[in-house]
């Protein structure tokens, strides 16, 4: 079923969409005004769906199709600067190419929403899933939400505008989902009613940046050092406030639409568990199955899904993992120079000083589209159990390749 055909089913409880269709449909529900995009696998279908919606008049938006991702981000930045609600999406090399305006968009405090159908970075070439592109831009001042399912893609795009446009935040948001595993996975999705979304998400009114000949101001000019310090501090504070806003918006979304995602983090069978696996995005679904199976075999293991990677929910993570004897962090990315993943490094920092301090071991999995299987994660859970029992285990294990654990 194509997206425009789903219109007839809008009032039905569910329809079938893949991750990219869900992202496009969510943008439509959010009444985005200016959209820009450039094709790159696996994000490309989003723009095709949106182009179809604009062509048929179902979506009253300006669609700009520039010569590359650098200009895509710039067009969206400019439109947002002029007061538009904007949407775009990209993957991998496209994100790398737009890095310069990507940084400028967050530091201009523009509430852009961009989906990332996450993909491995070259070289060698790979168009398949990995979180490497998204985590590589973690320090560029954007909010990054990592989502697990197609439904969560749709719901999180809607939530993302509420978070981004919140006066205490005013930051752009990435909605990050695994390329192909989520972007091209078709499944049943509940579609919210347009009226419900309109009530949840009022129109965007920009009053922190404006370009008006009647009220001329200079925008983004050279800052003196002390002003730069103050400006960066306000950006950091906005990130901190975003932690609260993400939680609030998740709660309100739950009240209106009946689905909640835990805000910054979500635990699964975690409270009574002695050990935990920590995941982000798509592999979380697999990890839920692995945890169930490990529990059936008597292992005391739970799961923590980190949803908000930026801002990093260090309080929530400490809260959720307090008292665990051992923790296994599964990273679908590589932090060069640490020989492990980025989440491992950041989680270790978040838990620093906690007593009793858990054993933390790292797993690198799923790079370049490599499948992360239930067996892989059962192996990881087993290794974490051994660590909890005080046995020697490697600091980092690569899942799915030669040092596979069983």
């Amino acid at each position, binding site marked *: 079923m194509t997206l425009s055909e789903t219109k007839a089913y809008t009032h039905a409880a569910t329809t079938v969409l893949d991750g990219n269709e869900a992202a496009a449909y969510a943008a439509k529900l959010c009444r985005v*005004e*200016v959209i*820009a995009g450039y094709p790159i696998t696996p994000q490309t279908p989003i723009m095709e769906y949106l182009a179809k919606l604009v062509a048929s008049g179902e979506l009253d938006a*300006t669609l*700009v*199709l*520039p*010569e*590359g991702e*650098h*200009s895509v*981000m*710039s*067009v*969206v*930045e*400019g*439109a*947002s*600067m*002029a*007061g*538009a609600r*904007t949407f775009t999406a990209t993957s991998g090399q496209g994100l790398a190419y737009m890095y*310069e*305006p990507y940084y*400028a968009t967050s530091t201009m405090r523009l509430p852009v929403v961009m989906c990332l159908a996450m993909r491995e970075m070259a070289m060698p070439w790979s168009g398949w899933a990995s979180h490497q592109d998204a985590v590589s831009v973690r320090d560029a001042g954007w909010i990054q939400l990592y989502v697990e399912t197609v439904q969560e893609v749709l719901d999180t795009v809607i939530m993302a505008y509420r978070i981004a446009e919140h006066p205490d935040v005013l930051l752009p948001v990435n909605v990050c989902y695994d390329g192909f595993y989520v972007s091209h996975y078709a499944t049943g999705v509940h579609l919210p009613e347009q009226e419900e979304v309109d009530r949840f998400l009022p129109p965007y009114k920009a009053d922190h940046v404006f*370009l*008006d*000949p009647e*009220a*001329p*101001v*200079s*925008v*983004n*000019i*050279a*800052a*003196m050092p002390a*002003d730069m310090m103050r400006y960066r501090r306000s950006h950091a504070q906005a990130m901190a406030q975003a932690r609260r806003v993400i939680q609030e918006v998740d709660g309100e979304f739950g009240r209106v639409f009946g689905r909640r995602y835990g805000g910054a983090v979500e635990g699964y069978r975690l409270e009574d568990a002695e050990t935990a696996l920590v995941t982000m995005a798509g592999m979380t679904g697999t990890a839920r199955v692995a945890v169930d199976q490990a529990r059936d075999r008597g292992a005391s293991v739970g799961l923590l899904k980190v949803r908000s990677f930026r801002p990093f929910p260090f309080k929530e993570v400490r809260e959720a993992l307090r008292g665990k004897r051992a923790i296994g962090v599964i990273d679908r990315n590589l932090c060069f120079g640490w020989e492990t993943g980025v989440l491992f490094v950041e989680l270790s920092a978040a838990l620093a000083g906690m007593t009793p301090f858990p054993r933390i071991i790292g797993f690198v999995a799923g790079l370049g589209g490599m499948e992360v299987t239930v067996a892989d994660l059962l192996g990881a859970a087993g290794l974490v159990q051994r660590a909890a029992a005080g046995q020697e285990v490697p600091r980092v294990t690569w899942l799915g390749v030669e040092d596979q654990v069983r």
Partner: protein
Amino acid sequence: MIRPRLLRKAGWMLREEPKLKHTFEEVGTREDLASPGLGACLGCAMEVSLRFALKVLGRNTILFLPAGCAVAVGTAGFGRTTGLKIPVVMPLLTQAASLPSGVKRHFLRQGIDANVVVFAGDATTADLGFASVSGAAERGENIIYICYDNEGPMNTGYQRGSTTSYMAATPTTPVGTVTRGKGQPAKDVPLIMAMHRVAYVATASIAYPYDYRAKLERAMRVKDGFVYIHLLSPCVSGWRFDSEMTMEVGRMAVESNAFPLWEADHGRLRITKRVAFPRPVKDYLQLQGRFRHLSDAEVSEIQKMANRRLRELEALTRIR
């Protein structure tokens, strides 16, 4: 005494054009939208070109100034001050045309009819930001893009750029026993933009303000596509001439056909300032220190290149 009318009849362009006085009375007395205290070099053509452009464009303008001399002199301001009386944005070099595209697109949605104008240097336009300029042109974005071409990134001290003239000496293409300045001819950006089939393309010079003004006013009337104006902006410090010679160098560039003034209005190309008896290019080159090393043979090579370029333009004017 030789009478101006007779001289014009003989094909000589005159220093005292009758339109010149009129232009300065009309435009020169308008409100200056830039701060009087801009920190440009004495004799900077860019500063006069910008002030003049703003007088023609008026207050209903959003100006985009990518990093370069036009910003460094203080137009966009520093810290909490601004140097202009109109809204000004400082985009990345690489988004010189794409950021304003986004702004203009949303203005069109809202029915706001303001001039969205970019005033960018040649390093931004021809090199770093060229993809964004070419893309915006191809999409027909309704913005006015003005490139002030001082033939190199002057804000960093005049290094080689793709619009730097053939054989010009720069700090990164110095004259030595092995090299003789820049080894390649300049990229012909205005002609490249004309070949994008955009609504309006023109070359202009502040040394010919009436011609420049007419082109800006034409640009403001264009509502159906992209406008590109390429200004020659003689640079005292980079090109090495005395600061009182700026207009002389600008005029000599046109009179020697080193920089012909032309426009392409919706594809129809026209030379707006014909030179019946052109000066030798040597007269233009010898005004500038960056060409001091040239031999007679090298000068005549440059003369041939200028002749050929003019013939190309002439050929294009004949296409109907």
